[in-house]
């Protein structure tokens, strides 16, 4: 890949330029505009600039609670996904047999290619009050437990959906770490655990951060799993946004909530890209 001067192939950018202008930048710009206007400028004769939609978010503690619930669920999901995703990513990066690698990859991709509705349904069937797990508990004479319609159920469902993203991000990063570094540490007398703790883990830190940012960004914008696993009991930001449209048709307020989610997501995306750049920078140095 060498840098070339501008040529006719650049014209191939036109279709995407049109698509993104009309269906991405324009709508998002309109959303930003709607969040600071008193009404629809196309039909209403007098619209004025207002900050009342944002004031409404700030004034009502309920909205802070919703944002905090969203972030809390996102943090737990990220933490658990990292905890269970790291070992699998490590195995995938280090396994020597090509067949084993392909099988592991399929095991990770299969859930990823299964729709969110389908996977959420599977977890509802497992965790419902009369679901598989409670039926098994009851059959063994054990007390049943409330496993969904609460944040626990939401987090389990979200972890299952987003752990593949964590695994795939980490596999690349761990795979890029020279295995000989770990072996050198072991030859110098470190136990495998210590070699991992002091060599591999610190070197994979940018990958951990990148994967965590990705999973967090995805988890806070989830709609289906929180609403179904939470049994309509728990309110997160995406649920509140959709409710503003479907139940109250409050387009301006939905837009301002959307802008809050947009700003949080943009910050996360920028941080994620910085991390990835750091990772690939490291790779070039090796």
């Amino acid at each position, binding site marked *: *890949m060498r840098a*070339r001067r501008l040529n006719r*192939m*650049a014209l*191939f*950018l036109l*279709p*995407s330029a049109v*698509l993104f202008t009309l*269906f*991405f930048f324009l*709508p*998002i710009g309109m*959303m930003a505009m*709607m969040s600071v206007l008193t009404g*629809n400028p*196309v039909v209403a004769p007098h619209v004025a600039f207002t900050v009342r939609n944002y004031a409404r978010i700030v004034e009502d503690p309920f909205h802070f609670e919703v944002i905090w619930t969203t972030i809390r669920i996102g943090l737990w999901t990220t933490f658990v996904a990292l905890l*269970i*995703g790291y*070992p*699998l990513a490590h195995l995938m990066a280090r396994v020597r047999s090509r067949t084993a690698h*392909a099988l592991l990859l*399929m*095991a*990770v*991709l*299969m*859930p990823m*290619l*299964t729709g969110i*509705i*389908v*996977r*959420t*349904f*599977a977890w*509802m*069937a497992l965790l*419902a009050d009369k*679901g*598989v797990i409670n*039926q098994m508990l009851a059959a063994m004479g054990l007390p049943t437990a409330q496993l969904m319609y609460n944040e626990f159920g939401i987090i389990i469902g979200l972890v*299952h959906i987003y752990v593949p993203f964590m695994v*795939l991000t980490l596999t690349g990063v761990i795979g890029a770490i020279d295995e000989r570094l770990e072996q050198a540490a072991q030859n110098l007398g470190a136990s*495998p655990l210590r070699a991992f703790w002091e060599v591999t883990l610190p070197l994979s830190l940018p990958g951990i951060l990148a994967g965590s940012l*990705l999973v967090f960004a995805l988890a806070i*914008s989830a*709609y*289906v799993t929180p609403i*179904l696993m939470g049994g309509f009991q728990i309110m997160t930001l*995406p649920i509140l946004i*959709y409710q503003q*449209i479907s139940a109250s048709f409050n*387009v301006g307020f*939905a*837009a301002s909530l959307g802008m809050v*989610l*947009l700003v949080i997501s943009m910050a*996360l*995306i920028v941080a994620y890209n910085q991390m990835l750049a750091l990772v690939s920078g490291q790779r070039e140095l090796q």
Partner: protein
Amino acid sequence: MNQLGFGRFLYLALNGLVLFFLLAPIAIIFVFALNPTPYIQFPPVGISLRWFEKFFASSQFMASLWLSLKVAALTTVCATVVGASAALAIARGGLPGVRLITAIVLSPLMLPAILTGLALFQAYVLLDIGRPLWGLVAGHTLVTVPYLVRTTLALLHNFDTRLEEAAQNLGASPMRTFFEVTLPLIKPGVIAGAIFAFIVSFDQFPVSLFLVSPGQETLPITLFNYLKYDLDGTIGAASVVSILLAALVVIVLDRTVGLRSYVKL
């Protein structure tokens, strides 16, 4: 040495548990789809195809399945044209600010799809467009273009421009070079991306949530509405149908172009 063996065992056992966590829910769906009882029962009591019959006999499910397939097919065509050409421009056009352009065309992948849906919905309301089919397809195209860009770019970055230069040095016109060298070169990437786009569109939820018109819903929306009140085997049967579709895709992908190069995040 004994301690080492134990550590290794723990490591593999832990990974076994993680894989179980990943795959067991998918397996359980098959149990429900085939289990004859109308409520969840475990262990299953038998095997029947009644839920599949109910699914395929339901006009509501069939209408939404048909709509989903139609939207996915249209989306695949649009995303392929837009995404593959964007990748060509990025890799071969010599554009200034190519990193920013790449980041922009890949951004729908990370930006919450629910925001894409909300923004498009508001724009359609403001401009009084209503909820036409092309509006839904445009939304789906937007969120699937990144897959095409990524898979096509992966191939374009693997091959350098010398192949194309060689063709031109041997006297081929730029047009002929494009059709006889560049296009065959990127074909596997475009196919892989197109398959991804189809599956992603078929399963797409947040954008559809805002953009479908009532009574004309895609399969994921119908399933969602059904799930709100009911947990019977019909959902299981519908899920199995979409899982088999996804499995088919993974196998086809692996056979045609290999999975490895498409999963770099």
